[in-house]
């Protein structure tokens, strides 16, 4: 039976961590049963390279050293792999316990548990159940978008990418070449901010509109990465949260609670209607139309026209 990959990785890690001098590939092959069993030198080499990459993903710093005979050797020095001293009290431990359960994406969920396990091994207090400590609070970070993992890695490693993207109102997707800077989750949806190479400008993309695979491109970033990347401001303005004007509407009494909650002024009219002043941002027309005959726009004329326009489209059906 083939030897499980975890066993092979574990043996390689322990060999590299346990040695004081660099070990050659030959020595490693002789020390680890799974490598001995490899069918050919080639098969062993491929396996070894992949395993080294995997261990590096796990945080192991593996050095490559040329020895006196000109042979390449490998070792994981303790000094570069040791967790610095960290002391956390029971409350802090409970807080991290809660945080480690938040990810619903497999890779980051595994990484978060892994971090907590390393801290446990380093003496993190374990007598507090985080659920007890925090009442019944369950924050979850949803990740439904397939593009998330490749983009997360590309942001981490600062690798340019290309993907097909369908703009909100476009019939067909088109390829976009992007230097990805940061990912942000807002109201349960993921967004990417980065440098759009074709447009020569910063852009924000919604991950759910990426169609097909995210492919890596070789080479470096060409545009400087800003110190602070703000995705939320851009997205909030799409959602109509950044209003720079105000509108005057009539609203039937007792209806439209969310409009009332946003209103800056409310005046009760005599005939079963109220008059409200509300912030006027992007998308307000579509929102007002939802309330059908319970809303009448008074001002400005532009908003009134947009709403009438939308209502006519529905009335024609």
């Amino acid at each position, binding site marked *: 039976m083939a030897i499980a990959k975890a066993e092979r990785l574990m043996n390689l890690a322990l060999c590299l961590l346990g040695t004081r001098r660099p070990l050659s590939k030959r020595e490693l092959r002789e020390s680890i049963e799974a490598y001995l069993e490899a069918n050919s030198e080639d098969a062993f080499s491929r396996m070894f390279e992949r395993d080294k990459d995997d261990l590096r993903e796990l945080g192991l710093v593996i050095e490559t050293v040329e020895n006196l005979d000109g042979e390449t050797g490998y070792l994981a020095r303790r000094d570069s792999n040791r967790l610095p001293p960290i002391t956390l009290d029971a409350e802090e431990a409970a807080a991290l316990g809660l945080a480690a359960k938040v990810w619903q994406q497999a890779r980051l969920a595994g990484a978060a548990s892994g971090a907590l396990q390393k801290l446990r091994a380093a003496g993190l207090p374990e007598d507090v159940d985080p659920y007890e400590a925090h009442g019944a609070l369950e924050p979850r970070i949803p990740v439904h978008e397939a593009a998330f993992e490749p983009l997360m890695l590309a942001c*981490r490693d600062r690798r340019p990418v290309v993907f097909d993207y369908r703009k909100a109102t476009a019939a067909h997707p088109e390829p976009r070449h992007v230097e990805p800077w940061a990912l942000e989750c807002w109201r349960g949806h993921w967004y990417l901010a980065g440098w759009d190479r074709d447009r020569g400008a910063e852009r924000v993309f919604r991950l759910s509109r990426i169609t097909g695979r995210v492919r890596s491109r070789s080479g470096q970033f060409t545009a400087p990465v800003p110190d602070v990347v703000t995705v939320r401001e851009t997205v909030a303005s799409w959602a109509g949260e950044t209003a720079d004007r105000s509108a005057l509407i009539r609203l039937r009494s007792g209806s439209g609670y969310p409009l009332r909650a946003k209103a800056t002024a409310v005046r009760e009219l005599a005939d079963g209607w109220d008059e409200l002043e509300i912030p006027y941002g992007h998308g307000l027309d579509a929102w007002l139309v939802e309330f059908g005959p319970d809303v*009448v726009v008074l001002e400005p004329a532009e908003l009134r026209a947009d709403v009438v326009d939308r209502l006519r489209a529905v009335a024609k059906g």
Partner: protein
Amino acid sequence: MAGKPVRPVNAIDQTRRMLSLVTYLKERPGARVEDVARAFGITEDELVSDLDVLPMCGTSFRGGDLLDIDTDGERIWWHNPAALGEETAEPLRLAADEATALLVAARAVATLPGLREGDRQALLRATAKVEAAAGETAGASSRLSVTFESEGGVFADVDRAIAERRRLWIRYYSPARDELTEREIDPIRLVSVGHTYVEAWCRRSEARRTFRLDRVAEIKILDEPSAPPEIELRDLSEALVQPAAEDPEVVVEVGPGGRWVAEYYPHDSADELPDGGLRITLRTPDPASLRRLALRLGRDGRIVAPRDLADSARQAAREALAAYDGVEAQGAHGGLAVTTDGTTGGSEP
């Protein structure tokens, strides 16, 4: 441990765990299987499968210094802890992904409006310590961020009611009917998934209900004790609101500008149309609640079925237009400048 989903075996995660496990076990001869599994957040079965692998591992296969670790199912014994040098068993530094996963989550939770101040402070202190311990690998964590939306005041009241096991009275807004209703609820837990919700037993409908905190118009903590029946908590990896198989079907056809409907509404199918639009089939217990959607879509889409839903939207639009009689509406549809590539054409909720 009961209730934990069975995770597929992932060699990377297992290796990571076993490396921490040897450090942990070295300090704790005779550790109990149950305690170790809990400390590592894994099932006892997962731990036992790690304990099956560890005796095959060592610093040198040929040297015969494999780890002599075994368990009687209750306690774990390591007979040759010296097989790993003193240094080999030291705690390992955090990997970039590990630091990122923990830090991004901790920062996100710490910004939840309404979180208890003591919890927030503990999160911030822990975050600072982990950042310091992670060193430069913590840097990449700034490339991911998450915001949870919550209503601070409502959150704090619900949190208190859960802790003190008390019933709540709320005035709650239902967008489907554009109305506020009063209910008494027995809160069970707070769930943040983008927005924050309280999952509760609703005394009015005698059923489990999920309420979004930003739709709670008013809230009072009652003196009566909360007594929700024992119910199985739903799996949070799925959408909070799941349509039932017996719910009526609604068919919506949208143009390219209405494709967002498929992103916002759980649906059974979304078929591409030749014009770049979609034909979306979804189910809802209350099709009348989709009148709002039909109105919002405007020229970007229409309800195909059921017929009376389409009619009611048309009727509502006509009634609304009556109020504008005599107004000469401009034909040009302005105000929807598309300046950014994710723009929605102003149509998304």
